[in-house]
């Protein structure tokens, strides 16, 4: 979920940069050098997983997984998402330097908020982990779709119906991500619980 170059108005582009750059700087400051390698490799795994297309009817949807990224990486999701978006613009020409701020805002804030709120429920012994996992996955996509629609609506009245349709188009992705997050977090709780404990992310330092 990202917005192409040339779509948004200048105030929205500036607002996106203002909302994302300080958060990016803060999270980079919190991220210790020792964890750069694990953050980089995990963000590569998330990037690869986000390229998976799930066929639905005649079309397909691709995963976003930003809620899960926030749950695993914590605040390091900001630089991880910024790196992934920059790579997308270099490798596939999706997005570019002017929309990087807005796109980081759309993807990373929901990731950090949903991941941070839901992660305490993923600890061993918590009964409500499945509900929290669904909210983490689906809620992050919902918030991202809302922010995307908001950015489009603020760019001009002509975009309001397009924003509504783009938001509605993300509802199936939201449900799929919610159910997938339950499965992935359930698997990680069984096989590698320390990945969900935040021990390697900057949040516990």
């Amino acid at each position, binding site marked *: 979920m990202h917005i*192409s170059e040339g779509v948004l108005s*200048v105030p929205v582009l500036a607002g996106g940069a203002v909302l994302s750059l300080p958060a990016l700087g803060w999270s*980079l400051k919190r991220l210790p050098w020792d964890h750069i390698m694990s953050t*980089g490799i995990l963000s590569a*795994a998330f990037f690869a997983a986000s390229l998976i297309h799930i066929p639905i009817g005649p079309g397909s949807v691709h995963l976003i997984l930003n809620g899960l990224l926030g749950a695993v990486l914590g605040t390091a999701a900001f630089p991880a998402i910024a790196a992934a978006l920059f790579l997308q613009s270099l490798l596939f020409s999706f997005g570019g330097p002017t929309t990087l701020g807005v796109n980081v805002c759309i993807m990373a804030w929901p990731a950090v908020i949903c991941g941070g709120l839901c992660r305490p429920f993923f600890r061993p012994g918590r009964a409500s982990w499945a509900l929290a996992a669904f909210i983490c996955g689906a809620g992050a996509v919902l918030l991202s779709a809302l922010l995307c629609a908001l950015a489009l609506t603020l760019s001009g009245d*002509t975009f309001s119906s397009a924003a509504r349709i783009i938001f509605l188009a993300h509802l199936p992705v939201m449900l799929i991500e919610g*159910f*997938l997050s339950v499965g992935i977090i359930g698997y*990680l709780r069984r096989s590698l619980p320390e990945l969900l404990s935040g021990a390697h992310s900057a949040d516990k330092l």
Partner: protein
Amino acid sequence: MRTNFETSADSTRSLPFFSLRAMRPERKLAAGAIFSLCAAVLSRPDPAIGACFFGVLLLCCSGLPLRKTASRLLSVNAFLLPFWLLLPPSPVPGGETLFSLGPLDFHRAGFETALLICLKANAAACALTALAGTSTVAENGRALHELHVPDKMTALLLITHANLGLMAREYGRLFQAARLRGFVPGASPAACRVYARLIGLLLVRSWHKSRRVEQAMLLRGFRGRFPLIPSRCSCPPEIRRRNRRAASLLFLSCCFAGITLVVWDVMI
């Protein structure tokens, strides 16, 4: 799923009079960013056509393979298709209706906005493909370091890119193994469970790999910093000087073109 995550830099042809490939990546990246910024602020179709023309000119000078570049631009335009479909029928108060199709009225303002978006997006995509696409991702990462982007961000970008192909191939292997066991891709609950396990397994493997790499780095004396090796051109000094002059000229041309287009946009 894609497994090739590299720009087309290595297959760039040098034109007899001009080689974008040989120029300093930081100057190209800065020129691309300034031109994209100028293209983003345009609000009228005429300067946007000018920006698109400049972008295509840069692309022609880049010597990038035609087929790959065309497919990249096609995918950029595929992302713009929703705007062509959604903006013209959007109701505009007092807007001029061009034609009606059943219950839908198609407005001139919607078509003009979609055209403007398309021109600006293509101008930025052409310029960035020509400028950033003629350097490898590693060179672009080092260019970010030269442009004073924090070292941690640069290192994270390079590590992510270095492992991206590896992770995509790993997922490809897991997916192939699942298909051999009778997995049918889809959105059914059973298929979602298999996807969740595949992604979970990919994350577990990436975690173990990162532990091994960290331990190997510590064994090799890692002290908390990645030294970024500066890119040095191995060509003779006179060619290096010529490349530097050409890069400066390119940077100035992009800035001049961008500012001229913005002034034109304001003056119309």
